[in-house]
């Protein structure tokens, strides 16, 4: 019987990288089921789709939130929006959210976390704007419930321990000029940050919405823009 060959002491950097990788794999939970998502959001979301039981932060754009809700709604799921009194119903309908299966709780008040938990029990996709700070204990308790129910939570604000963060970094409107024209289409740069280092930070360009009220990734060949730029590369290039 021979002892297994003892590996040479791994450099600490390597250990950290591996641990980050394990964390990332645990966080993304490969066994969780995918929620039907709008195909335009494939380059934006880590793993290409929304997943059941995850929390996705969406910052700075209600349209992006609607785009995320449109996919599940089109596939026949109920969606709920809590704490967003200014949620534009007409825009939601035009962007493909079925109003028959949309529930709004415009003012959940102080009990918003309880309301979200009650909604998450029955509605598979819930969007919420937190009315206050969430403690890590509260968030992990709710997240356990989300995983158990298979509910996806979209948060328009801060959330400790979210699985992904989407943010609109830049937006450019087309169609409106100096004194004439009208808003017709816009292109945005959406930045994505996953949990842990396993999913790399990335930016991608989207039409949000395009001229026919559709969501689509901007075709790099047509407009001359490059592929979605990995965030690391940008930093590396900036560093020299």
């Amino acid at each position, binding site marked *: 019987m021979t002892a297994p060959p003892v590996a040479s002491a791994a450099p600490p950097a390597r250990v950290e990288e591996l641990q980050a990788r394990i964390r990332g794999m645990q966080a993304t939970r490969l066994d969780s089921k995918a929620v039907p998502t709008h195909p335009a959001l494939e380059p934006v979301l880590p793993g290409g789709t929304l997943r059941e039981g995850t929390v996705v932060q969406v910052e*700075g*754009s*209600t*349209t992006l*939130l*609607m785009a995320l809700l449109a996919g599940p709604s089109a596939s026949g799921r*109920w969606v709920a929006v809590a704490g967003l*009194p*200014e*949620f*534009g*119903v*007409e*825009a*939601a*309908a*035009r962007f493909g959210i079925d*109003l*028959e299966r*949309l*529930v*709004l*709780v*415009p*003012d*959940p*008040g102080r*009990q918003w976390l*309880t*309301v979200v938990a*009650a*909604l998450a*029990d*029955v*509605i598979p996709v819930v969007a919420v704007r937190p009315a206050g700070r969430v403690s890590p204990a509260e968030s992990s308790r709710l997240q356990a419930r989300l995983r158990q129910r298979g509910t996806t939570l979209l948060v328009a604000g801060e959330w400790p321990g979210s699985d992904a963060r989407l943010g609109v970094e*830049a*937006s*450019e*409107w087309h169609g*409106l*000029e*100096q*004194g*004439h*024209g*009208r*808003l*017709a289409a*816009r292109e945005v740069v959406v930045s994505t940050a996953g949990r842990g280092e396993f999913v790399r930070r990335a930016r991608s360009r989207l039409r949000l*919405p395009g001229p026919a*009220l559709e969501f689509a990734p901007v075709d790099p060949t047509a407009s001359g823009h490059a592929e979605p730029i990995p965030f690391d590369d940008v930093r590396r290039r900036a560093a020299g």
Partner: protein
Amino acid sequence: MSADPGRTIVLWCPDWPVFAACRELGLDPADPIALTEGGLVFACSAAARRDGVIRGLKLREAQYRSPAVTVLEYDAALDARVFEPVVRAVEATVPGVQLVRPGTLAMRARGPARYYGGEDAAAEALLATLAQLGVVGARVGVADGPFAAEQAARAAGASPFRIVEPGASAEFIAPLPVGLVVDARTTVLLNRLGVRTLGEFAALPDADVRRRFGAAGAFAHDRAAGREQTRVTARTPPPEFEVEQHFEPPLDRVDQLAFAFRVRAEEFIDRMRAVRLVCTALRIELDDERGGHSSRSWLHPHWFTPADVIDRVRWQLQGAGTADSGLASPIVRLRVVPERVDSTGNHEEGLWGGGPDERVHHGLTRVQSMLGHEAVVTATIGGGRMLADRQVLVPWGDRPPERRDDAPWPGSLPALAPASVFRERLPISLLDASGTSVAIDARGAISAPPERFAVGADRAVPVRAWAGPWPVVERWWDAERAKRVHRFQIVDDDGCAWLLVRDGEGWWAEARYD
């Protein structure tokens, strides 16, 4: 032929629809009141009739004849609802009552006449019962057959009842117009043929009437001749489901009241369940100490459970307040009446439980019981030019308003709708190059191109692109509700687009494209 030629008592309350509306809304029946249906007068009070208002008159003509008239919409359900206690009271006096229509009851005369010792004594007993309920001016007619008896009640005039001797009914109804037994077209035809009264119609040979007017004509002919074959068909009194609770001392807290009513709510549902019924709509009536009355119907997408009934009571009480808030005036009486019941068979759960929508409903009901009925809403898109008008929010469980046609609404926005529509418009400032606010003159021209834009008291940012003004003129014919605003679309320096509105008071942000 039997010895009893179908002696019938008919109890008639004149102007019942008016009386019912007055009782519900607390009006005085002595005032001129008209109920309309489809723009025509359906019923009116005695005071209005004195002014010349009659049934079938156009509303405008009625208001011209009687300027002080109060006009209300006719509600058939209200009629029947207010009449129900009257029917119950009469059933307690004389069993076997047929409800001809709200306001008119028919019953066989033989039993009551024997019990009270005469047809006139029975009629007086009935009128005394009605007087106890506060129904004044009722008339009783006794004759052979329901038709003749009703005509006798209507012909009573000043005396409270009119009794037509047995066998004299044909003579009694002979001078009445023929239109009482046949429809309007046949009436015109008979009048042209020279037949104007029931007596003349009855004198026509039986076989000829049947050949010319068919079975319906023969039936009318029998009625006109006082040979009516129809008999009173007494209704089976429906089981009583409503529950009522008086509070002594009056309760002034919502939670106290909800707790006190819990037993009765369970009893309410259990009683219906015992006869295999479920309640899908109910009405809650509340009386407070100061004499205030609140009444409201509640619908349920499935059926009510005791907890749902208590929730509805709480929502009706608290309005916009919270669960532990006090009430304006203590409640002395609470009454719950089922408005629509259905067989449990139609609401049976499937073998594998209800569908997913039922789960959704239970979850949302929980949220509603936390926050109130109005807090959970579904949305539909209505008509209008301003964005806030176009989104119609309906509390969960209520019926959405009827969807209107997609009218064009000239002046509304193009297809791209803003993602954020502010409930309260944000005050903003839109400045030109020299730092003064951009103004719009009467012809819709701007004073200078906008250069800088600020929300509230924030730092002003440059305007990258803009377009406008797009005028919106609404209800120019109505001085109080007229609206004349100008809309702008701008893109600010951060690449965020806004929909701005300029009205008489200043600049506002109506919505944001974000």
